[in-house]
């Protein structure tokens, strides 16, 4: 296959939920678009990290029934996923979520991308350099053959880690560990017990018993199991922090990430071994797949023309230049005591101004997804995939508009 040549109208860095939305939206206007991802498939957290729930798709409401918050790409993806899995939105506590299957997500993304003749996909590529050349961006792509260069008029950073800010040398901020949201390690399990509420509670008791007896590490406290929607398959999720279990974790540091991946697998293995030995309903269960990478909730964020704040989210603030609605409560995963949710007054949605997608003082660059301009608290709401679809779509439209 020939490397892409010539000048693209738009390059989208990172093919997660925001990047797919951005690239497909831009390409649908006829813009010549390049979507770049480091894995062998797109989808990011929702595929490579096995995060199996679309959060933030629906409005918060007390009445029964799920109502889509953002029409457009988020709604389109939700429809395709429901068609694929046969499972609609679920009310969990006070929120409506859409269970999604990572395997379906990969295929849906492939089909959406393939349907756009002006959209080119480049997988297995890390962006290793970005610079301004005349009136366009020069992007260095690193693959196994070495460094390749592509040119694009406009750029969208949907990398999740504000990679472009790192390469340009500034304009970003990152919360420090241990305040940084803890990563999630999600893995697939087959042939386990049914995931009825009763058996989940029983399993929780077995986990605590295992920790008490020293059979499994204390890090396993808070592990949860949820049905995948496919026969015999469940997903296990563990929130993890740094190697000492308390403090230092840096999602940009490959040594930290290495430690995280290895520990996630070790804890999951120990938990499964314990449950298999201890419970009849778990005795045939086995780990059927590992994530390509651990799920990162929070990383480096851009500083934009406006920074959405936790106060904005609590008040359900609206803006004249809003491009999407954030509806997910601020979900804090800062410590081992489990998730803490902060809901906005009156379940109000919060507007996300287009200024949050505009890095301060840099032309022809937009940002989408979890690394848009938001403070630590607001990021705990806007990071979810349902909202990332919406900010991605908006960035794609703004970049080529």
């Amino acid at each position: 296959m020939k490397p892409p040549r010539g000048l693209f109208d738009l390059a989208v860095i990172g093919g997660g939920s925001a990047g797919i939305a951005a690239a497909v939206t831009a390409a649908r206007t006829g813009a010549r678009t390049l979507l770049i991802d480091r894995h062998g498939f797109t989808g990011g957290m929702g595929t490579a990290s096995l995060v199996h729930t679309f959060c933030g798709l629906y409005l918060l409401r007390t009445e029964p029934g799920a109502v889509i918050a953002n029409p457009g790409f988020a709604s389109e993806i939700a429809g395709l996923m429901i068609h694929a899995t046969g499972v609609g939105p679920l009310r969990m506590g006070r929120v409506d979520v859409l269970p999604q299957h990572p395997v379906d997500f990969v295929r849906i993304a492939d089909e959406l991308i393939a349907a756009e003749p002006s959209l080119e996909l480049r997988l297995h590529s890390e962006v290793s350099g970005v610079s301004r050349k005349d009136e366009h961006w020069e992007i260095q792509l690193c693959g196994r053959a070495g460094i390749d260069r592509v040119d694009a008029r406009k750029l969208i950073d949907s990398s999740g880690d504000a990679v472009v800010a790192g390469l340009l040398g500034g304009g970003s901020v990152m919360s420090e560990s241990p305040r940084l949201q803890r990563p999630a390690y999600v893995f697939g399990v087959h042939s386990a017990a049914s995931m009825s509420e009763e058996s989940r509670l029983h399993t929780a008791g077995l986990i605590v018993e295992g920790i008490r007896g020293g059979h499994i590490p204390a890090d396993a406290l808070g592990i949860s199991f949820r049905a995948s929607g496919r026969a015999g398959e469940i997903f296990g999720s563990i929130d993890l922090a740094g190697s000492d279990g308390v403090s230092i974790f840096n999602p940009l540091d490959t040594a930290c990430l290495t430690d995280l991946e290895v520990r996630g697998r070790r804890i999951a293995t120990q938990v499964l071994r314990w449950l298999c030995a201890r419970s009849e309903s778990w005795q045939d269960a086995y780990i059927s797949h590992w994530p390509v990478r651990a799920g990162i909730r929070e990383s480096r964020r851009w500083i934009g023309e406006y920074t959405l704040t936790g106060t904005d989210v609590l008040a359900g603030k609206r803006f004249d230049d809003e491009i999407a609605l954030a509806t997910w409560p601020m979900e804090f995963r800062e410590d081992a005591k489990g998730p803490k949710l902060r809901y906005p007054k009156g379940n109000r949605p919060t507007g996300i101004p287009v200024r949050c997608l505009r890095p301060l003082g840099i032309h022809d660059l937009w940002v989408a997804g979890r690394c848009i301009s938001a403070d630590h608290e607001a990021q705990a709401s806007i990071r979810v995939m349902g909202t990332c679809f919406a900010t991605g779509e908006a960035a794609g439209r703004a970049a080529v508009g």
Partner: protein
Amino acid sequence: MEVSKKTSPNPTELIDWLNDEGVLELDWDFPEGGDLAGAGLDSMAVMQLVVAVEDRWHIELGPEDLTKANLATPITLAALIAGKTS
């Protein structure tokens, strides 16, 4: 209020304690017979609960204790703890 370690909680004290421990976030007027699962007492929160109960009342809740019936409301949960402390 100074409470002996051995004294089991009444349902209202239990509601306050669940909030203080951060196991759940219950409204100030959460009823003694209110639905704890609906208020967020899922399998993850239950693990926190078991650890916190062990710290506070020095009793061990095992897998056989963690049934939907025992964890249904502050009343049933208080009864479970009382049964273990007596």
